[in-house]
């Protein structure tokens, strides 16, 4: 069986991105990576309406006008103690909120991974039969939300 090649992260930005990468990354600096990718672990499942059966939205707009992929809003991420003025202070990591919809709130934190995680993806440029893989990013922190859900306000 032929081996599959796994390329290290290339210095040029990942070609797999079909949408243009926005200039600003809203996440705290610690969670920012060169590719912009970050890891969020949820002790829960988010059920997202599928295109075929969409009970919230009847308008058939699978693609937005500019051709980019359609997004479904889930909620909001808040790092209440994070300050852009003081990014080196890591106390903010202890608290993070994920609002699901308008009223469900999950409490979580930002954790350093025991072992970093490589995000591996197929290499888009490979035209040969055997697809090459590529480490598109190495992630060292994750945003982690546990089960405990509370209703706010």
């Amino acid at each position, binding site marked *: 069986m032929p081996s599959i090649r796994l390329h290290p992260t290339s210095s040029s930005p990942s070609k797999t991105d079909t949408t243009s990468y926005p200039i600003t990354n809203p996440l705290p600096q610690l969670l920012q990576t060169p590719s912009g990718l970050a890891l969020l672990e*949820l002790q829960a499942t988010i059920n997202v309406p599928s295109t075929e059966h969409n009970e919230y939205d009847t308008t058939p707009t699978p693609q937005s006008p500019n051709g980019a992929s359609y997004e479904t809003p889930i909620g909001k991420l808040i790092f209440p103690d994070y300050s852009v003025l003081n990014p080196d202070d890591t106390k903010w990591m202890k608290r993070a909120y994920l609002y699901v919809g*308008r009223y469900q709130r999950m409490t979580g934190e930002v954790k350093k991974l025991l072992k970093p995680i490589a995000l591996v993806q197929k290499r888009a440029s490979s035209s040969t039969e055997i697809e090459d893989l590529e480490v598109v990013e190495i992630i060292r922190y994750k945003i982690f939300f546990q089960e405990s859900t509370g209703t706010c306000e």
Partner: protein
Amino acid sequence: MATQDARGILFTHTQHQQGFRLLELPPDLEALLTSKDAPVLELKSPSSALAQAVVDPSALEYVNLCTPTQTYRIRQVQSSNSLHILRPSPGNISQADIKVVAEEDEDSGALKIPDDAVSSIAKCGSTLELHVPPGGFSAVPFLEKSLQLYDPRSGDDEGDIMMDESSDSPVDKGPAEVRRLRDLVCADIPVCATQCEQGWVEICAFIDGKHELTCWRPSARICLNVWKRMMEGAVLQGIDLEKQFLVGDLWKSVLDDDDTPEPFPRACLEAVVRKLCTADERPALADELKWASFEKVECTRWVGETYLAAMAPTASSAIGRSDFLRAWKDCLPESWRGDAALSKLQDGSYRSPDPTTIFFVEPSQRQQSSKAATAGSAPAAKAKPTRNWHELLKNSKRN
């Protein structure tokens, strides 16, 4: 403390999800991947024929991740949590949808929409962990199944080989061809290049570039024969095997003066010399072995084990211990004879059915018995064996 904008970051789910795999990195692999000249890694599985021939008791199907010098077994570990990969979002959200998450401002009635967004572009239900089993990885069992046994027999005691027709018309295939063929063999062996090379040297595998291009592994009998011829030749030509000698001189010393055919291919002699030469003098497989010198202890051990493997490979063919020790000594240079002792042989390399006899134990048998001993104590926590990499990625893409 100044706090973040209370509006937070809009969190969305991108409908067109991407396929990702999460690979946990041990420290040495992280260092390698983040180094300036990070090498391309390989995901290797054995060919189906090899997978059947070399059974791994821990996994039916597996994929190994290979750096140039290190091999890891990939194990897929399912997670009960969902792992989302986020990316700053271009914010392609319809205004109808946004009401699900945004509140209206009490005064103006306008929606309080966060300025920025991140979107989940992939969801993973598992991570890939890397492991190195206690015994490490070896290419030897795979090479033993991949390479043809070189064990030509002829009538006389010398064990000469029919190299008849081709000696007049040598077609030297050249080192590039030889290397290409070796790479082809190693492509099917699920360990890293360094371990492939170590295994190749360990079993004295060779490719005879002068004849039909085939990868061979010489039998113990042939190895012993090569050693004996080298010994005789060295004595005749006054070559001191413990000091640096030219491999070309040693080769000439084993050839008869007359036109009798070569006793074995030169590549076979070179493979044995490469195996026996002191480790720090050993060039990479791709490089020519020009100079060599032998290390007494290692050499003595190898000759003893090779003799035993050739003459008493199984319990039923066990030979007398004293006969073995005498024959072993006879295979060694005069000054080494005193070093032949059972204690010099590797642990587990021989067994004695009774106090007077001895036979050889194949390395694969040794590993099994030591594995069986450790298997009892090891926890039986086995994750689902990783399946074919192609399938792994294919499946993850559809989620």
